[in-house]
């Protein structure tokens, strides 16, 4: 591996911008893992594939409205529609998965829903493969909204919004960051201030007691899956806008890294998921930039191992208290 001899500020800023953008996606995926784990103590391994479905729904809306090269409507409403469709579609999928793959196994040994989750993951991947084929679909965000796509004139999404020490921060990166922060703030307020949010916290704390207090636990759990899947759907569209291509296997590694982010930050913790996502994104970016592309995954999963060894509850996770 080739290491830089001197500190290159421009490279560092570029990699930081990349890392924060990427980390935003992982944070949204991690939130879904954390929400579900917090309530059900279940690792929803199908979550990465819900993200994949969201990306495809966004692509479907894009192509239905003339995209990516000859849009029927303006770019901003198009993107809003893509987000809405993907979020609602993924949310509905999440509710269905909970209803048919996890709820019947709620009282089964812990391994059973885990295996069911893996089964759902494979089911979604192969369904996408069979229905949509193995080829990559492109959001073509470089040319999306361009006045002259036939001449390879870039669209507004890649226009620089501002420049930091020679590094262009593109419109799409700002959009992704803004939407992510907005969703996270909305989620935090929702969980803290709304009745359903309180019910979710109560159910996470003690499901049986919550049921005894009159909380409809089934509804709370379904809502949790809905919210987590909505975030995954949003992440899927963001991924398509950032990196253009969507394909049936995209959820696997992203889901794994989202899970890593959730564990690093503290599974079950919302701020932990956000912090974990950021750390994973930055680690991946710095490793790819300073060490080499082939090392980035090694660093990301290496961090997971280190955190599990040093602080198994995660950076912001609550330590489990056991009675003696």
């Amino acid at each position: 591996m080739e290491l830089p001899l001197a500190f290159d500020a421009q490279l560092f800023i570029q990699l930081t911008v990349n890392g924060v953008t990427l980390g935003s996606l992982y944070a949204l995926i991690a939130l879904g893992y954390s929400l579900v784990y917090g309530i059900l103590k279940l690792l929803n391994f199908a979550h990465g594939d819900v993200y994949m479905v969201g990306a495809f729904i966004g692509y479907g809306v894009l192509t239905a409205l003339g995209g990516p090269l000859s849009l029927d409507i303006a770019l901003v409403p198009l993107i809003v529609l893509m987000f809405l469709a993907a979020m609602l579609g993924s949310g509905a999928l999440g509710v269905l998965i909970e209803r048919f793959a996890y709820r019947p196994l709620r009282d089964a040994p812990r391994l059973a829903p885990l295996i069911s989750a893996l089964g759902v993951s494979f089911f979604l991947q192969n369904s996408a493969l069979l229905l949509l084929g193995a080829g990559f679909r492109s959001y073509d965000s470089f040319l999306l909204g361009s006045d002259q796509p036939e001449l390879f004139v870039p669209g507004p999404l890649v226009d620089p919004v501002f420049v930091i020490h020679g590094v262009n921060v593109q419109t799409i990166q700002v959009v992704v960051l803004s939407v992510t922060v907005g969703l996270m703030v909305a989620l935090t307020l929702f969980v803290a201030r709304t009745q359903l949010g309180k019910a979710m916290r109560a159910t996470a704390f003690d499901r049986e007691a919550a049921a005894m207090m009159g909380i409809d636990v089934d509804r709370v759990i379904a809502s949790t899956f809905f919210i987590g899947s909505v975030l995954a759907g949003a992440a899927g569209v963001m991924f398509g806008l950032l990196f253009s291509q969507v394909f049936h296997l995209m959820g696997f590694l992203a889901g794994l890294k989202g899970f890593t982010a959730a564990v690093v930050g503290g599974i079950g913790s919302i701020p932990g998921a956000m912090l974990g996502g950021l750390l994973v994104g930055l680690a991946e970016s710095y490793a790819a930039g300073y060490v080499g592309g082939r090392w980035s995954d090694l660093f990301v999963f290496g961090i997971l191992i280190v955190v599990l060894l040093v602080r198994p509850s995660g950076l912001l996770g609550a330590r489990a208290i056991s009675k003696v």
Partner: protein
Amino acid sequence: MKRTLVLAVLTALVAAAAAVTAFGGNAGSDQTGSSAVPAANDSALIRCGRTRTIGVAAPITGAAASIGSQQLRWARYYVTRYNATHRTKFRVVSGDTQLPDTAQAIQVAERFASNSRILGVVGPAGSQEVQVSSAPFRNGGLGYVSGSATRTSLTNDGSRRGYFFRTVPNDDQQGPRVADYIRTVLKASRVVVIDAQNSYSTGLSDTVEAILKNRGLNVRRESVSEESTTDFSSLVARVPADTQVVYVPWQLAPKAQLFGQQLRAAGKTARLFGSDGLFDPDTFKIPGSLVSFFPIDLKSKVINAYRRGPGKGSTELFGLPSYVAADVVVRAVDKACGNGTATRGEVRRNIAATVIPKAQSLLGFTVKFVKQAQAPLGPGDMQRPANFGIYQISSSGAYVRVS
């Protein structure tokens, strides 16, 4: 009493199943209902019948599914076109090799070898798959023609002579051609070579890097996992701003397109030079880029019919050599079946002797296989003038042949 009866019935069923399995010699019979099928090997005589069978081994699922499925579609497309114009018909049996999982490739090869109806094989796709499949194919006497395995040693080491053939130039043909173009035509002095961490890519990257370095060029080598990487921005950051050419011997055109766009968005003006795996006019369209590929006729009726038909709007030209490979295998089987029976050995010999004239070959040159080694060609490689041309992508995304 009831339990005893149930046990007796179950025992009888098991015994019957065992008897059928052991003595049911008609399990592999052809449609004309012949007697017990001979064992699948080199010299076993097989009745051809009106419907003949070829195998197609490709990664239909898994990380390389996007390219494997193209190869399968193109091979099937050839068979469909053949069946529409001939009395005898061909049937395709597909095997999913799930590249890069070579364990699956071995299983597919063993299944094909033991299926006595299969007279020849198109594939496998990856060089590492060819390596692990060699023994089962050899034991079964099957000839196999790959449309994408380019590692030079596959034909040059002599271990697959008479069994393995390919309808793509090997790395030692493509690599020097590309390096020569970079040095003498583009006159570049600062090059970055980015391999995709698979056997196809590293072979080409090693060759090009070595030749350019020997000629005194400044060559930087990078690596990226093409299948799993979605964000190339960090890789882009590692490409020095003064780089003139970036050589990307990858196989996934959408990834190369994204990389190229991110390179341009970062303000870097290096020219991208892709290998044959990136020849995809529908997807890889970075203006000014170069791609090496066969000297095909992009306006060919066959290619355009594919686009309208199985391609569903795309030409998927990565799979084109598999069409030609299917052509080779089918011609060989047809010739062997001239008297109504054939052996796999006959089919293999016919493959080796196959000649597809330029007018009938979609590759743009006559397809004929080397019998004796003539470096860098080995037995099973296509004879000269088989090699790649160089195409440049215009500002409108059109591919124009420049060499």
